[in-house]
């Protein structure tokens, strides 16, 4: 069972009807799913009506590992908008999943940002805001 951390998010989660199921599944079932192409056998993200790699319409959602490696990370310390001030600092990362796609997320439980190693193995941790009724991706080092 994937760990769920209760948080207060700075803004509502805006999703598209094409990627909605990703966040809904995370929020309701805590499952990590990815769009998968039955034609070329590759995963992609976010969800779309066609495969990002080959353009096929034969795409579906598949359960995925929720494991990957940190590609890049930053730590936001400055309030670019007044509504985010109380939530800072926020570390944000991109993660190359074991299945291939590079996804987005919050880095959690990381200590000092300067010391976070690139390519470090990470796993998914769901960040759930009960009041806003939504869940986003968090990543924690293995």
């Amino acid at each position, binding site marked *: 069972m994937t760990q769920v951390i209760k948080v207060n*998010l*700075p*803004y*509502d*989660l*805006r*999703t*598209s009807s094409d*990627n909605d199921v990703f966040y809904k599944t995370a929020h309701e079932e805590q499952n990590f799913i990815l769009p998968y192409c039955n034609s070329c056998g590759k995963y992609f993200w*976010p969800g779309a009506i066609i495969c*990002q790699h080959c353009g096929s319409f034969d795409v579906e959602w598949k359960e995925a590992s929720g494991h990957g490696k940190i*590609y*890049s*990370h*930053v*730590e*936001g*310390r*400055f309030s*670019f*908008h007044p*509504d*985010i001030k109380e*939530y800072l600092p*926020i570390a*944000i990362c*991109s993660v190359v999943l074991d299945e291939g796609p*590079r996804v*987005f*997320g*919050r880095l959690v439980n990381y200590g000092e*940002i*300067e010391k976070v190693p*690139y*390519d470090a193995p990470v796993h998914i941790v769901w960040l759930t805001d009960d009041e*806003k009724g*939504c869940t*986003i*991706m968090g990543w924690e080092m293995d």
Partner: protein
Amino acid sequence: MNRTDLKNKYSIVGVGYTPQGKVLGRSAASFYLEATMNAINDAGLKKDDIDGLILYRDFPILQGDAMHHTANVITYSLGIRPKFLSQEAYCYRTNINKAIGAIENGTCKYVLIVFAESGRTGHRTWTDEIDLFSSKPYDEYAAYGNISAFTNYAMFASRAMHEHGTGPDLWAEIAVAHRKWANLNPNAIHYSKPLTKEDYLATPFLSWPFRALDATASTDGGRAIIITTTERARELKNPPIMIRGYGSANDTAKGWQLTPGDPASSAAIAGAQAFEMAGLCTKDIGAAQIYDCYTYTVEATLGDYGFFEKKKAADFLTVENIGPGGAFPVNTGGGLLSEGYYMGMTPIAEAVMQMSQRCGDRQLGVIPGTKLPEFMIVSDNGGFYQSNETLILERGK
């Protein structure tokens, strides 16, 4: 048709500036009109000669303006009837392609490209879309806390620290070199504000690994250029600054997905197209005007163009080499970082001014140890390093 058929067929013939920096009480529309008329006057044309008008992206309007600055709204105020109008909806770069295309297909004779803003006085923060867009929040990533262009570029630069060994020490050199150029440019916002590497390193991280001094800032003012055929340009009062080569390309990556050193980056592809059309290589280029929204953008762009090996950027991007008096001048007006943010108009206008020898104390060929370049490379970069138009300009003789 072969793209090399267009080599030097088009020229930039006029540049329009406005007061810039913090200019109180002025609408963005007024800067659009002033920059446009100044470019027309600079070229020795009449406003009715402009039959193509292209605007950079439309931003949410700020105090002082009643209307969005769309190309048709600006047209009404100019009192002209252009055959061709266009504007970026967002920050992808298409302007040179569109201008040359509209003339090449016989629609237009003189195409004017303009950007203007009242972002400094109007406090555009680059996140005000959160408040001003009709839907809140404005995208999926806001919930994660990613609400600024700054964050996406910082992610790009952060990975480059790992891939290429870059970092704040190198970016400090870029920031200081730009400031030294700005200190020679009376139009620059930071004309009278010197900056040292120590000053840079003493400032806090806004989004690690970037500081405020790694980024450009919003400005008031506008800037415009006019493109026509080199044949027509020879009848006008300014020496034609010829477009020897140009290229454009767009990436498939999202802003936070950028890959430092990607051989298929928009800058790499657009640059290669421009060099191929021009029949030149990096060794032929005497100076560069690079879209420097962030310090690292200068490193990424020049690296993708092939001016240095990416892991050896620190040997090339020194204050001594790219600053005033250096062997390879970069952003000789101070750039977006230290002169002012007018999108691609900042580097393009500076290139034209340098090559027509109108740059005063910062003029290449006048500063001891420098030469007036025969060829200059110019980048215009949009989105988050995802869209690029590159120009190689040649000084008409």
